[in-house]
């Protein structure tokens, strides 16, 4: 990260707006493509005012909401190409408040600019904007009100965060010494990571204080909220299993020898597919596979991987006509202390892939 002191001249900033805030027109101009204007426009003037002499908004990139929404990733790439020419050190988008299409566009622009230009990217949204969940990982999204009535607060929040990102404090508060501002202090949606922070009180002191409050019937703060899970309806049964193509999924960490996809033994976030015929042939060859999962004793699985992924039993069922086909690849992941959110995402990703391949059913085995 480049601090402002080290820069020659002023920090350059590029700002993204939709057609409305970019003063091209209302909903009737939402189909308009990218337009670039020099200097700040609309909310950009408020941003510039709050930035003062710290930085200069050199250009405003504007795009119609409908144009962007038609193909967000392609539009974002088009937008990045326009931003790239300005040698910017910081990128702002919006704020989008509760506007859904605009929020997604701001998020997509932030993601693309951050990934391509490696500069801090900041936007602002209301908590119910779909852009928050879609892009909170990829951008600093300041918490804003529902509408442009909250513009002043939103702009101040974005600028304060921007300045903080460009001038990291000398004394890091994080154990890892990374420069990440506190979401509470800077008013942005946490980016789905967690970090260790130094505190005044020990864990022991806090636990006794809080338990005593709980015992006295006084208010107390738990330091993490319990999860809420949605109920998932059981899908309808397969009409004819004898014709269905069935895939195996396992989180037991069974991978080809050498672990080519780099699945982790714990806290794993990846999945991969492996050809069953070469990986789990009828005659087991223990030199072709290994178990990367570090949360169970894999002795039985290493001796015979069919005990994790019952391919042998399935082959028999296929031969006898009771099951249709065994899908040619095995879907593998390593499920040891992986966060539930990522597990759900992997399920969606695997499901989509199976659907694409015409798999009709899946058997999931765990350890």
């Amino acid at each position, binding site marked *: 990260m480049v601090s402002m002191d080290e820069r020659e001249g002023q920090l350059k900033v590029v700002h993204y707006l939709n057609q409305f805030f970019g003063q091209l027109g209302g909903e009737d101009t939402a189909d308009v493509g990218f337009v670039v204007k020099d200097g700040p426009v609309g909310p950009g003037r408020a941003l510039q005012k709050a930035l003062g002499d710290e930085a200069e908004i050199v250009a405003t990139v504007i795009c119609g909401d409908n144009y962007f929404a038609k193909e967000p990733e392609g539009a974002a790439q088009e937008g990045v190409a326009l931003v790239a020419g300005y040698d910017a050190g910081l990128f702002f988008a919006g704020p989008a408040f509760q506007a859904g299409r605009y929020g997604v566009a701001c998020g997509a622009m932030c993601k693309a600019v951050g990934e391509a230009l490696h500069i801090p990217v900041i936007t602002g949204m209301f908590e119910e904007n779909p852009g928050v969940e879609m892009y909170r990982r990829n951008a600093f999204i300041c918490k804003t009100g529902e509408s442009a009535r909250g513009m002043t607060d939103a702009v101040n929040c974005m600028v304060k965060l921007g300045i903080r990102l460009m001038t990291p404090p000398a004394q890091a508060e994080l*154990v*890892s*010494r990374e420069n*990440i501002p*506190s*979401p*509470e202090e800077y008013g942005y949606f*946490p*980016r*789905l*990571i*967690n*970090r*260790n*922070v*130094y*505190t*005044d*009180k*020990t*864990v*022991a*002191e*806090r*636990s*006794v204080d*809080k*338990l*005593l409050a*709980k*015992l*006295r019937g006084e208010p*107390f703060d*738990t*330091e*993490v*909220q*319990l*999860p809420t*899970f949605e109920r998932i309806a059981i899908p309808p049964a397969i009409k004819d299993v004898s014709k269905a193509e069935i895939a195996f999924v396992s989180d037991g960490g069974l991978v080809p020898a050498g*672990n080519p996809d*780099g699945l*982790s*033994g*714990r*806290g794993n*976030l990846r999945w991969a597919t492996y050809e069953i015929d070469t990986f789990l042939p009828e005659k087991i060859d223990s030199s072709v596979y290994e178990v990367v999962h570090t*949360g169970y004793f894999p002795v039985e699985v290493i001796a015979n991987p069919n005990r994790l992924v019952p391919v042998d039993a399935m082959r028999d069922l296929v031969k006898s006509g009771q099951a249709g086909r065994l899908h040619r690849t095995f879907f593998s992941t390593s499920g*040891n*202390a*992986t*966060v*539930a*959110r*990522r597990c759900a995402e992997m399920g969606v990703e695997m499901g989509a892939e199976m659907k694409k391949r015409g798999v009709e059913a899946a058997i999931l085995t765990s350890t």
Partner: protein
Amino acid sequence: MRLEIECIDIDDLQPGPKTRAEEHVLYVDLKELEELILRDSRLATVDIRLVYPEDKVRIVNLMDVVQPRCKVDKVDADFPGFVGKMQIAGSGRTRSLRGVGVLVADPQTTRKYSAFLDMSGQGAEMSVYGCLRHVVLAPTRAEGTEERDFEDAVKIAGLKTAVYLARGAEGHPVDHTEVFDLDIPSQRAKSDLPRVAYYYQLYSPQHDHKGISDACYYGTDVRHFTPTILHPNEVLDGGVVGAHTIRSLDTYTVQNHALIRELYKRNGKDLIFAGVVAGVVALDPAAKARQSTMAASLVKNVLGADGVILSKVHGGMPHVDLGLIADECEKLGVKTAVFAHPLVSAGTLTDGLLFNSEALNLIVMMGGVLERAKIPLDAERFLGGTADTHIYCPDPIIQRAGDPMVDFEEFLLAGVHDHLGGSRIIVKDY
């Protein structure tokens, strides 16, 4: 039970012809210490070094950290079952040296997760041990000794050294005496203060090296332990020690058990310290049910607690078991505070919780022990191993102690996190 810990502040550590303490300087007869350690026939040699803050040294293959302690008024009573003969720890007088530690390394370890410590640079700043002076032991295995036997011997060498050093300070004026006096039977008298117990998860067999549990309790392992009541002084005074590998928990941390000390501090003022229930992580559902129902019953029906704080050891299964026990406590009407930490730095803290019970509405976050940190190499010398010694990295790479930068999970750097509540770290959503 009354325990007096007589603390002597040690400002310097020097080799000397006779082990003694004078004017806050501890002199160590290295030859005599070596002879003492090598009386154990399982050890072939031992490399003994003194290290100081700011030394450009990285100690690798670290197995334990021990505070020098010895009993003053009892014979053969140090670390009972490990060094001394079996007797109940926790009463009488104990000498404790502050500002100095014993670092125990196993240069021949085959364990995947071995801890390390730096005496200078960022690594030293992150660790509570970076500012102490240490006696470093690195023994080698005698021919014919099995690996796990050797590990036990290395562990005990560290404890013996701690006793030897503390004994050497005999005659030095005491700087401060800490009194831990808790007569649990008489605490049963009526008081308006809430009775608070502590559930101490001692061990999890999930990390057993070569399928054998480490001894950590009066000289024995606790794999088949059923929940038991301890006096807190037993924990502070050598009845419990760290396992054979540091995972945010070593003997020094147990000797200075932060939560027990905090409960003592508040005893009689804000609460009545009702005692300690100790248990272990269970590997199968039936055993989990036994552990959780028995532990909760001891907390409620034997200690008569109104509230309980529960601490865990490293890992996901310990997290699950702690939730089960806390849930059983709440069912019996005992209010709980549960220690937890996420097992991965991705997702929200809520995503990382491995239990889900509405009754567990007070969760206290320790630091995320699996958080990744990077520190540039500052060391010029390596003890307990070499510059080629592996330091585990979760990425599929081989990382060595002498690499210009090590990228590791924080539990591998001794003295950063403390599962017993002593660290001033909280993990937060970012």
